[in-house]
Each structure stands twice: as structure tokens, then as C-alpha cells.
């Protein structure tokens, strides 16, 4: 299974570069333009990342997460989930920068390649900032009632989180 992840990167890059060249695109110009977009979006997320990394770092240093994990571990242990991933899982639907800071705190505590680190990575990669997306999209369309959008989206998130635990444990 690790092989798929290993091959995915060179395969995706080669296929896209070859396709672009075949279509007559100036692939290096396009790459530069895209990379510039990457810088722009990094700059735009930087202020909130700085604020929230400070916040999470404070919570870690104060011993809050150790306390929280102590309280949560009887519950999470019975589910087979490392308690360290829970703060990230709870933050994920609310704030992208917040979950980013918490994902990093899991890496710092347990290591990126540990079971907790991989579960948290898969959770972060397979779900979205659900509440933010709902607010932005319905807000843009001028619709105040979200009807059943939140329960359906939350159900999707919970499925993604659960599958993150299952797939990491099995693979």
C-alpha cells in the first residue's frame, strides 16, 4: 500500500507534464503561474496560522492537552483511537488554520509517521472545514436556511474520520 503513495507523486507529475506538453501548453510558464498562486495562498493564510499556532502552542505548554487526553483516553481507547487525534478531529470542521496547528501538534507529540500522526493526517486530508464551507456557500447565494445541509455534511465528516482510523489501522 505504501507503494501507491510512493508512485502517485512521480506518476501524477509525469502525466500532467506530458499531457500539458502534448496540448502545446508552455508547461514551465504554467508551473510558475501556479507556484505563484501557492505563494499567494500561503501569504493569505499566514496571519491566521500564526495566531492559531500560538494558541495551540500555549495549550500544549500549559498541559491542557495532556489533561484532555487523560480524560478522553478511557473513551477513545475503547474505540481504538489514539486520544491525541481528537482535538484535531473536533477542530477540523470549524477552522482550517486551527486544524493545521493541531495536526502539527500531533506530529510534534507522537511523530508524523506514528499511528496517531497518520490517522490525524488522513482525517485532515479527507474532510473539509465543513461549517466554514456551508456558511460561505449559502451566504453567497443569499440563503439563510440551510435545511438538512448540516446534518448531512456532519454525517459525511464522521464517516471520513471513522474511515481514517480504520484504513490506517488496516494498511
Amino acid at each position: 500500500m505504501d507503494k501507491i503513495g510512493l508512485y502517485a507523486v512521480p506518476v501524477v507529475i509525469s502525466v500532467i507534464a506530458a499531457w500539458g506538453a502534448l496540448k502545446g501548453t508552455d508547461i514551465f510558464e504554467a508551473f510558475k503561474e501556479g507556484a505563484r498562486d501557492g505563494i499567494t495562498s500561503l501569504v493569505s493564510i499566514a496571519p491566521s496560522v500564526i495566531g492559531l499556532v500560538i494558541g495551540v502552542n500555549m495549550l500544549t505548554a500549559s498541559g491542557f492537552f495532556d489533561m484532555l487526553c487523560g480524560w478522553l483516553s478511557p473513551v477513545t481507547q475503547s474505540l481504538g483511537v489514539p486520544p491525541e487525534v481528537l482535538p484535531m478531529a473536533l477542530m477540523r470542521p470549524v477552522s482550517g488554520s486551527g486544524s493545521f496547528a493541531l495536526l502539527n501538534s500531533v506530529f510534534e507529540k507522537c511523530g508524523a509517521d506514528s499511528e496517531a500522526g497518520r490517522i490525524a493526517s488522513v482525517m485532515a486530508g479527507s474532510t473539509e472545514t465543513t461549517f466554514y464551507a456551508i456558511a460561505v456557500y449559502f451566504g453567497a447565494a443569499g440563503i439563510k436556511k440551510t435545511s438538512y445541509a448540516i446534518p448531512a455534511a456532519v454525517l459525511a465528516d464522521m464517516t471520513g474520520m471513522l474511515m481514517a482510523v480504520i484504513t490506517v489501522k488496516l494498511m
Partner: protein
Amino acid sequence: MLAYLWLFMIIVSFFCSILTGNVEALAMSITEGADKAIKLLLSMAGVMCLWTGIMKIGDKSGLTDAAARLLSPVLARLMPEQRHNSKAMRSVAANVTANILGLGNAATPLGIKAMREMAASGDERTLPDRSMILFVVINTASLQLIPTTAAALRQAAGSTQPYSILPCVWISSAAALAAGISAAKLFGAWRKNG
């Protein structure tokens, strides 16, 4: 929203550090956090730009359009209320493909455009139609070929295999998407009006 969250983090940390006797560590952690945040962003920047650059090549050479064409029949089936609204359906397909390719900068404006076009199709409405809800649910399930941010952060944290999570992410995303679509369809069938 984030203002409350941030306040919570700061105040809780302070009280917690008094309880656990970690005030000194807390004091250190504040400036250390600011320092760490920028180092993190810098150490991720290269990988992030790599992916936005690669995906831009795909976008510029028509890969997004081709993928959108491939997806449109599926999306039309999923959104019967809007299937004849070709303008909206084009934006929907473009948004979904941009998400899959990880073109976050492009995906959100396209999604907003899609929502506005879907809202404009009906009468003056306060309640979203089933297609609009399904579209937002699809967006929250985060289908993405390469989970760029998570991979870049893993690499910055010294992972030996930052991309080993890919198969798990694909399976989990697909499961989340399937659950979201099923739930939206089910709740939609229960809803009486529109």
C-alpha cells in the same frame, strides 16, 4: 467565531498552566509559537508551490475541462432539480474538478458562482433546493487527488513517507462522499416541500 476560539485558547492555557504549575513553560510558548508558525509555513512553502504549479499545468492544458466533461453526466443525475440549468451545472462541474485537482484558489469562487446560479434559477427562495444542498455536501467531503497541505506538513515534520497516507485518504474521502450523498438524498426525500 475564531475570536472566541482564540480567547478560549489563551484563557484556558493560562488557568491550566497555573493548575499544573507550567506558567514558565507557557510564557516561553507564546513567542516560541509565533516563531514556529513562520518556520512551518516556510518549510511547507516549496511543497505547496510544487503542487499548485503542477495542477496549474493541468488546468491550463485543458485537463480540468476534460475532467469536468467526464463528470457532468454523473452530476446531472445527482442534481435533477438543476440538470437543465446548464450554466449552473457547468460551474458545478468546474468546482468539483478544481477541488479534485486541489486548485483551492479556483474552487471556492467557482462554487460560489454555482450556488448563485442555482439560486437564481428558481423563484425567490429562502429554502435551498435539494441540488444546492447536495452540492455543498459534496464540497464538504473534500475529494482531492493529492492532500497537499497535510502532505506538506508531514514532510515539514520530518516524515520519511509523507505521501504514504494517499490510499487511506482516497478511501476515507470516497466513503465520506458516499455517506454525504446518501444522507442528503435520504433527508431530501423526507423533506416535504421543494
